[in-house]
């Protein structure tokens, strides 16, 4: 309202009267460049005067897109994709541009703080007071020194979420070894996607995510991996999508499998809405059809010696009649499992139409190259490993492993060695203290716990509270907030009341609310931080965050916080960290590796790395062509590989082949049979096992991530909040998608508040009645419902974790996030 603003009116009138002149002037501006038409691509467009572009990497998902950060007069005001970055290619996903908001989030912590209220709890204000960094670091080191002196160094734990590179999470290994705790560096992977990692380890021997050559694939079959909303690297997936659907010839055909209509299902040629947890049944039926109809890739899989197909539904086959090439156990699999997995059978299990299953199988089996990919939707269930193995085996059947248009794994960057070696700074306690025999608090790798898991972060609170194996004393958090995100999250509140909590996030969070010390990190636009790529296209790549501005507040990069704590530990450990000096020194040493192995973009040292923001070296070094493996010789895939080479470099399984009969599982068969109840004849094969749902409700609860779900801060970004769940069309918070038939039965309308109940707890949500979800499934995105996270996040939307039971896949350790069966009623 400027009803009284007469002072400016006159001036504005004068400005307005010259509007036409201004337009003419701006037209004239256009000729200043005096460039030819079309514009010369070699001549980079000038940016505004006074503006500096810094190369960095986005922090809002694991993908690590290179970004150009535009800064003028010390103010970051724009973020675009880095054109010369292989993942970003100048583009961004919807989260990328919001980074400057994160930098200037008004709720950020402005410096280190300590708690003055000894009581802890949701309703206990911690009454933080600012302290100096020295006091903060001395406090931590003091506790750590005391624990170590008492012989209880194992009771210090450091839990981390998104590790980026050698200068942050990479420092945790040496810290654990020098300090002496099995619990330093408990990662979040078991709440993330270990299900797929272990499924791949069991079959092709690589405990890793895959790299994918989507651009050359002609068929994509996606299970529970929302390629167009959540799957990593999201930004590049979108670029791929534009190419394979709008430009490539032939257009890549896509079938997507999920439990509700999302943007991927809507965009795919065929969307299959399966009953949650039954993806494996669909994959088995597809494999069944590929075999019975003779569609498998003979050059990779092998063939019947007389080339006559003996795979007939329900009939066993003599293994001697089949000559296997790069797979192991195909005919045994058929006999013990696959012969009965007909489309008709799968139709009943999955609730899909038999005709759709058959059509999908035929397309997948006849269109090469083809990729079957899967993620959380398929494997965050009790049968997740089996689902994953079944799906991944489809890749073997059509010969996609290491093929052009198929999938492979990731090469690491040519980093230089660290400035000093931890091994040179070990005292007696580090070398052989009692901690060495202590199990990890999460019982990862322990027969009583999860022998084959990679991490079991979701067990930490439970085990601590049960004093099994022991109680922790001091817990430090880096980029993880299980008090909000873990299954049965309220259990974590109880644990954190009992331990000394150190939080390192720059932002308020549930963990910070329970913390005794807050040592706030820089936000990502203020950090110097390295980050090798996640599995992408296989070729090695390492990117660098370069600070766009000086730290806005009195914060410290986590890598330096850790180094500074290390310096304060008594004995040689302190000396190690003094020698390490700081995180920049670490990064400078990493960059020395590039001197011998310059990147394709000319990056050869620390300075050029900073300037370009990324080092990479194409291509991936190995390729399988029609059953023959070749290595890159500098000009082409020309060097043939022996079976031993393949085993050593590409498929490190006991047999050196793709093991449908998993040697890895067979070696632990007794343990697996004991914890899973699976038959010892079958447990090493991909096979059907009905998922164990948690709870007795009539509705599945599925909690997907949406495109605007960043690494934990979107809940406090107003621009992300208004776009969070676009298909449901709510500008304020996440909503529970409920099928009209359910809504009618329970008398629920869109906008009604509903209570979602499971045996572990209940939560309140706003309903959206929609045909987008299955009639047996409630879809409620994971993102909102924070009880402490910043002024916009607090008490907005629904916290899903309290209704998710802490149930995990006994083999992979993967938390079964999508396994809940709940009831809903009007609130």
């Amino acid at each position: 309202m400027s009803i009284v603003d007469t002072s400016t009116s006159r001036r504005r009138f004068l400005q307005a009267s010259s509007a036409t002149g201004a337009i003419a002037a701006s037209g004239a501006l256009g000729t200043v460049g005096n460039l030819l038409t079309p514009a010369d691509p070699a001549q980079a467009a000038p940016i505004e005067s006074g503006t500096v572009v810094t190369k960095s990497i986005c922090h809002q998902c694991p993908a690590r897109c290179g970004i150009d950060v535009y800064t003028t007069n010390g103010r970051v005001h724009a973020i675009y994709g880095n054109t010369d970055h292989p993942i970003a290619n100048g583009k961004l996903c919807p989260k990328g541009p919001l980074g400057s908001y994160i930098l200037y989030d008004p709720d950020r912590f402005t410096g280190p703080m300590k708690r003055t209220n000894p009581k802890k709890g949701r309703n206990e204000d911690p009454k933080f007071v600012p302290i100096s960094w020295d006091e903060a670091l001395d406090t931590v080191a003091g506790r750590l020194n005391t624990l170590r002196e008492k012989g209880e160094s194992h009771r210090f734990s450091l839990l981390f979420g998104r590790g980026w590179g050698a200068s942050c999470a990479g420092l945790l290994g040496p810290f654990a070894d020098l300090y002496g705790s099995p619990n330093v560096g408990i990662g979040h992977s078991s709440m993330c996607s270990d299900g797929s990692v272990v499924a791949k380890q069991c079959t092709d021997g690589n405990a890793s995510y895959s790299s994918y050559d989507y651009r050359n694939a002609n068929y994509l079959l996606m299970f529970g991996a929302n390629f167009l909303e959540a799957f990593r690297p999201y930004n590049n997936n979108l670029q791929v999508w534009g190419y394979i659907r709008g430009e490539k010839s032939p257009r890549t055909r896509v079938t997507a499998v999920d439990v509700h209509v999302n943007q991927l299902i809507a965009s795919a040629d065929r969307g299959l809405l399966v009953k949650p947890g039954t993806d494996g049944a669909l994959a088995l039926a597809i494999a069944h059809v590929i075999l019975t109809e003779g569609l498998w890739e003979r050059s990779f899989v092998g063939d019947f010696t007389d080339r006559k197909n003996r795979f007939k539904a329900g009939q066993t086959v003599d293994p001697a009649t089949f000559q296997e090439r790069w797979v192991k156990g195909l005919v045994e699999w058929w006999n013990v499992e696959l012969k009965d997995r007909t489309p008709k059978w799968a139709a009943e299990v999955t609730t899909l139409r038999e005709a759709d299953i058959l059509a999908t199988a035929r397309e997948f089996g006849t269109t090469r190259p083809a990729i079957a990919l899967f993620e959380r939707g398929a494997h965050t269930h009790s049968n997740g490993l089996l689902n994953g193995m079944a799906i991944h085996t489809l890749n073997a059947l059509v010969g996609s492993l290491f093929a052009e248009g198929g999938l492979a794994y990731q090469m690491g960057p040519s980093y230089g060695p660290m400035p000093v070696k931890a091994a040179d700074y070990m005292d007696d306690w580090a070398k052989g203290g009692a901690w060495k025999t202590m199990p990890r608090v999460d019982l990862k790798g322990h027969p009583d716990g999860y022998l084959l898991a990679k991490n079991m972060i979701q067990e930490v609170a439970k085990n601590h509270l049960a004093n099994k194996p022991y109680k922790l004393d001091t817990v430090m958090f880096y980029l993880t907030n299980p008090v909000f995100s873990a299954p049965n999250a309220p259990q974590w509140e109880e644990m954190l009341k009992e331990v000394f909590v150190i939080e390192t996030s720059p932002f308020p969070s549930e963990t910070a609310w329970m913390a005794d010390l807050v040592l706030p990190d820089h936000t990502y636009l203020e950090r110097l931080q390295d980050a090798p790529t996640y599995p992408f296209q296989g070729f090695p790549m390492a990117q660098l965050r370069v600070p766009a501005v000086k730290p806005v507040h009195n914060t410290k990069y986590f890598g330096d916080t850790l180094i500074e704590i290390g310096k304060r530990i008594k004995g040689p450990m302190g000396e190690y960290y003094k020698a390490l000096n700081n995180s920049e020194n670490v990064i400078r040493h990493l960059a020395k590796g590039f001197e011998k192995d310059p990147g394709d973009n000319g990056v050869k040292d620390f300075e050029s790395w900073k300037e370009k923001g990324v080092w990479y070296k194409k291509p991936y070094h190995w390729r399988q062509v029609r059953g023959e493996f070749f290595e890159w010789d500098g000009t082409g895939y020309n060097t043939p590989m022996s079976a031993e080479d393949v085993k050593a470099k590409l498929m490190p399984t006991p047999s050196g082949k793709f093991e449908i009969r998993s040697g890895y599982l067979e070696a632990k068969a007794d343990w697996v049979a004991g914890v899973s109840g699976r038959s010892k004849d079958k447990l090493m094969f991909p096979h059907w096992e009905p998922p164990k749902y948690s709870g007795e409700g009539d509705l599945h609860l599925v909690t997907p991530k949406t495109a605007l779900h960043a690494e934990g801060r979107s809940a406090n970004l107003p621009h992300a909040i208004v776009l969070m769940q676009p298909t449901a069309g709510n500008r304020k918070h996440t909503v529970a998608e409920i099928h009209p038939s359910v809504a009618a039965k329970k008398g629920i309308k869109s906008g009604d508040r509903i209570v979602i109940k499971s045996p572990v707890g209940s939560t309140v949500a706003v309903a959206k009645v929609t045909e987008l979800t299955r009639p047996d499934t409630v879809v409620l995105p994971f993102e909102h419902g924070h009880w402490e996270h910043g002024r916009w996040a607090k008490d907005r939307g629904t916290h899903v974790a309290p209704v998710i039971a802490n149930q995990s896949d006994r083999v992979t350790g993967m938390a079964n996030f999508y396994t809940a069966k709940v009831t809903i009623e009007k609130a």
Partner: protein
Amino acid sequence: MTKWGMVIDLEKCTGCQACSTACAMENNRQPGESWQDVLYYQEGAYPNVKLSWLPRPCMHCENPSCVHVCPTKATYKTEDGVVLVDWNKCIGCKYCQIACPYGVRFYTDTKAPVEPDVRTVFAAADGKHTWSPPYKAPDGREDWTHGVGIPPAGVVSKCTFCYHKVSKAPAGVADLNEDNPAVKEYVPACVRTCAPKARYFGDLNNPASEVNKLIAEKKGVRLLDHTGNKPQVYYLTGKSAVIPSGRALKNT
């Protein structure tokens, strides 16, 4: 003379909303004040549900009804074909919002969809601007005559085709393609950031431009042609994409 236009390939568009956030940040829009918005539609019943979406910038019409109705000539069409609002002339009567068939205009003074209101949290100290986000564009870029920057209260704002960028493009350039480093900085934010490259921007008056080529080869269509507004934004529907029907469905 240049006539800027846009082509949006709906077959490539994944509905990710990166255009919306890139626009919001580049142009310092309030949350929900989506100059560039993506609209979602659903029809049908499980298991065959049609979920579709339509990215919707301002159409920068050849014959813009908003310009016709504006009583102060605050809304005008530039010589290079862009429809802008002069915030020095706008009186906030909102008739342009009424007259726009595409719903692309925003009054600065409406209730915030998300509380606390960013206009309060990041209040403008000078009392002349609606708000002052800490990451706002460089001060020198503000240009109320062309509706660029952060507006005063009581006016209507809209997509400018990133006029502060495109107006500086070299004269006579046919295509503003973000993959061409020479013109990258002149490309509208939504086009520049679009990951699946569903957006193209160029000169509709240049027969050789990429936008004209796409319109011809891929059969570009314009929204609501019957209103006579004649948009300068064209949509490609390819093999499988759809233009959502305008007819409102019953509420569920």
